[in-house]
């Protein structure tokens, strides 16, 4: 990673941790803030898709898809903002879907690692259990927007810490003739 990329990664991590503080201190409106963040990220994804079309995808066979996908994502994001009163449903769907997928992949990796006598099976099993645990919590607390927002913040915290760690990781490969 370049120096700028490391700084960007660090700042993103710090930004995510700060976002957690704001969300946790917001009480009931924390859930609406979470949906707002999810909606804004959808809109940004849509804008990125449009930029992606003009910078790269228009040179690709079938690249027109990027343009339509961008428009759809932005519209979906705008709709999500307007439906923020039903924050609970959105956060529930997002958390449940994401953790179900992540948990499954982690457990499959743990199994594969165990079969190959690798050491990473313990860590992957832990990841998988945590993901499944969050999934179960989503179902138990599906009627509580505050709890769902807290679970979202836990994921945000994990991502933030990872970004901060990545900023300091050794990444270069030495070359010697």
């Amino acid at each position, binding site marked *: 990673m370049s120096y700028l990329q490391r700084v960007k990664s660090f700042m993103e991590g710090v930004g995510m941790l700060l976002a957690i503080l704001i969300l946790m201190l917001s009480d009931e409106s924390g859930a609406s803030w979470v949906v707002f963040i999810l909606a804004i990220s959808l809109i940004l994804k849509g804008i990125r898709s449009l930029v992606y079309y003009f910078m790269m995808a228009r040179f690709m*066979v079938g690249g027109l898809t990027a343009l339509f996908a961008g428009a759809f994502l932005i519209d979906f994001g705008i709709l999500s903002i307007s439906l923020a009163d039903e924050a609970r449903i959105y956060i529930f769907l997002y958390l449940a879907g994401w953790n179900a997928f992540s948990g499954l992949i982690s457990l499959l990796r743990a199994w594969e690692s165990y079969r190959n006598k690798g*050491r990473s099976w313990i860590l992957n099993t832990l990841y998988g259990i945590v993901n499944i645990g969050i999934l179960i919590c989503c179902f138990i607390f599906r009627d509580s927007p505050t709890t769902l927002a807290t679970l979202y913040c836990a994921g945000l915290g994990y991502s933030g810490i990872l970004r901060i760690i990545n900023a300091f990781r*050794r990444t270069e490969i030495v070359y010697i003739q």
Partner: protein
Amino acid sequence: MQIDFHYYATYCAAYLAGFSHEECMEICSSAQFTDCCSVTLLSGIGAPLSAATTQLQLEIMDAKADILSLQNITRIWASFHFLPRDLSADVPGGSGLYKNKYRLICGPDSDLLAATVELAKDKSLQAAGIAMHVLADTWAHRYFAGTPSMVINNTDYDFFELIPEGDSYTERRVTFRHNPSAGDDLEKSIYTNTVYQFSENSVMCLGHGRAGHLPDYSFIRYRYLPAWAGYEAVVKDNPSEYYNAFCQMIYAMRYLRGDLPAFEKGVYDTETAAPWEKEIRWILTKRQPDASADWKALGELLSGQEIPAFDTAPFTQDYRKADKADRDETVLGKFIIAALAQKSMVTNRIWKSGNLLAGYSVDYMQEGFRGLRDFQKLVEISLMNRQK
């Protein structure tokens, strides 16, 4: 390519190049092991994880979409399976990132291939095996890049298999499905590929995933639209390309053995292969998912010796049992050193061309040691060799 070519065909090419049966076994085992040496395998035996030459499906799916994961994926796949053809290719349009991805497109007879073969000169047989794997894959995997990229590696419905009929071909539309457990139906041209995921850095668009296993079948000929080719169709004639790969392997291994003074791009030792051309082309054009049995038969005919089935156990068991100080002298130890050297060289070349997709390379002679500690081994070996 798959085990039939990387293991058995490489054995045949090595024998025709003049190596003994035992040497051929070391070379072809290493060539095939390049498709097995994953982080999962290495972590199980306490070997340096940076020596990974491949990634298992679940490792790839588990990879995050952050920049470090993408660089790690690119380093592995571009170094061992999708060697870039032209790192300074002229790209008509697009952003800097698009040009960098375009320049990672794999193809045969590249400067990097020459560098790969040179790197294996006067090194272990394991280094030769890795070089042969890389060489063979430049033919099979051409037109795809060893980095997750939709704009380079995507395919679409315009994909036709060319079925030989007399002197010409009939076109049959290829149907792709996403069910790995179902297997490929060669009779109906129904093949498994990766799911279409609308994301530039999706691992579904890594290498030839979107074309399924087709580039690895020696018998197949197909016409399709590469994502980067501006709607120009490309015809891939695998039987011809695989034959070129075979002849080029003989030529490269003759050079590594010391029979030839230099390795030049675009030279294929068709003369040495000529007495066996009919048998080889018959194997390459036979419509079957795995030609291992036929290649094995040819190899045993050539050498008069039995070729055992490929097994990773001998690699890992010796390494595990050996003392730490002696590990570099085991077969896997030598493989690891060769893999680290190959990865270091390719990453350096990509980085020097101004392309950051494979991450940073640090020139030891100018900046000293920095970065991943696993590569310290290369520095130690190099300094030892200089002292000698």
